[in-house]
């Protein structure tokens, strides 16, 4: 319990640092939100009025405090560009039902591919199966996922018609159609992470298979499958989970690209347009929520350690 509380506290601290960093980095930006709203021809009096309305005439600390106060209540301010005055919180709330299931599906797929393939490769080290798996992993690492996405849309969506070529219906309107439009993006998003995780699982397994207790398990006549799955894999997963976090972070970040390829109205696409349009409240809100999601994924992974590794459970 102490272990999880400590991790939870660390996560909240990191989130606070992220919020301060994004807020203050963006504060030093050249460019004036009031100008963005009214245009460069606006008269100085009107500009002053808009600045006062947005609260931009107050000291930066006060602005940050009022922004943070809003965030706690679920209010991220108003967008400067999206049919002007749209609440940032509403835009984010509309994007999450796209991005969260997409990321969850991709994480599941990446794990479901990497753990069996990595284990198989390690147990057949140097043999054909190992070489084929390593070859696939090398290809998955080198082929740009967005390129594969563009080609997959042409083949599976346009030519074969199995999936929509882009976009996504609302879950409430067409749940099956929504799910269907996430399958191809989730596969593309999972591919590079599956490739790296396969290698990580393989390396961890090879380390474990050198251990004395594996020799003991073999020596007492356990079947090889039992040795590898029971004694090997359960221990390999402990060391895998310590490096998997960074891969899952990369996967969540990859939604920015994949949502663009498949025109999915998710958080990644919202962040991208916020940045390209220089819509500050939207950039602050979306990056904050994006960071929160990444930290939450990390926290879930951290809470897996005690389950995987009894030593942490015992000591803490």
């Amino acid at each position, binding site marked *: 319990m102490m272990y999880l509380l400590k991790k939870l506290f660390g996560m909240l601290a990191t989130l606070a640092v992220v919020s301060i960093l994004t807020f203050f980095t963006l504060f030093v930006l050249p460019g004036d939100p009031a100008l963005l709203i009214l245009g460069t021809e606006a008269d100085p009096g009107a500009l002053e009025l808009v600045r006062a309305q947005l609260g931009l005439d107050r000291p930066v600390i006060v602005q940050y405090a009022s922004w943070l106060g809003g965030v706690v209540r679920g209010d991220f301010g108003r967008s400067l560009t999206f049919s002007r005055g749209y609440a940032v919180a509403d835009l984010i709330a509309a994007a999450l039902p796209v991005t969260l299931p997409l990321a969850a599906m991709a994480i599941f797929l990446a794990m479901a591919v990497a753990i069996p393939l990595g284990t198989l490769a390690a147990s057949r080290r140097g043999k054909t199966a190992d070489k084929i798996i390593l070859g696939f992993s090398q290809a998955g690492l080198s*082929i740009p996922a967005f390129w594969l996405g*563009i080609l997959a849309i*042409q083949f599976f969506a346009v030519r074969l018609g199995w999936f929509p070529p882009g976009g996504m219906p609302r879950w409430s309107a067409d749940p099956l159609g929504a799910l269907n439009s996430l399958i191809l993006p989730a596969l593309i998003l999972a591919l590079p992470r599956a490739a790296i995780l396969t290698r990580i699982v393989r390396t961890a397994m090879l380390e474990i298979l050198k251990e004395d207790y594996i020799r003991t398990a073999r020596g007492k006549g356990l079947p090889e499958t039992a040795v590898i799955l029971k004694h090997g894999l359960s221990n390999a997963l402990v060391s895998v989970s310590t490096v998997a976090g*960074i891969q899952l972070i990369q996967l969540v970040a990859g939604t920015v690209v994949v949502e*663009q390829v498949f025109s999915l109205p998710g958080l990644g696409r919202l962040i991208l347009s916020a*940045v*390209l349009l220089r819509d500050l409240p939207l950039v602050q809100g979306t990056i904050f929520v994006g960071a929160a999601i990444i930290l939450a994924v990390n926290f879930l992974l951290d809470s897996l350690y005690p389950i995987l590794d009894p030593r942490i459970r015992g000591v803490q």
Partner: protein
Amino acid sequence: MAGFKWGGSVLVIAMALLTLIGFFYTPHNPTEMNIQQRLAPPSLQHPLGTDNYGRDILSRIMVGGRPAFQAGMVAVTLGLLIGVLWGAAAGYYRGWLEEILMRTADGLYSLPTILMALLAVTLLGPGQASILVAVTLANIPIFARLTRAQFISLREREFVLAARALGLKDLRIIVLHILPNCLPTLLVQASVSFAAAILAEASLSYLGLGTQPPHPSWGRMLKEAQGFAGLAPWAAVFPGLAIALAVLGFNSLGDNLRDYLDPKS
């Protein structure tokens, strides 16, 4: 070089040559539009076809590799220089300095490259400069962590203790005795990092955050080709193939170097 596999190097040299030749010669002007020739399939005149403005795709690929290779070179050079100093200071002196340096590196390491690029673009605007900032920042903690790990295991070895017992200065020990022993590991990472930087540059310019039109970059070409990929598949296939071959080349070069320099693993 007995036992060294050349597969990766051959790919790297081929893609680098293609880009180098592009500085002196391209079959056509890469930015010149030709409406009569738009969306032309591969032919003798246009070996890889043309795009929606009738621009020659081979010429654009030869020029479009520049931002990718530039990102790789800047990311690896600056990442190595700053990261090695960073990691060497942490791994040689240990103590509170190490704690501060490595905490910062860990924090930086956990930020995805895309996020750094998005922040850089918010501050500097879209363009190659923002991408160079992002890929460099992504590589500094990687080299710092690697160098520190190497230094920690090397600093207690006999040859270092002997050098210290002889009264050599810290700087001399670090540069002449420890650093050369880190080179194999750093070299392998440099190759892998080069591959990652090429991939990052391509993804980011695909998102419209990097090289701006009319100048070509492999990622940007894919972004433009996506709109007419059904009419002109060659416009979407070849730039992606260029990225994949370059990335595969540097990744395999890393593997080949690892096998050659460290046959144990």
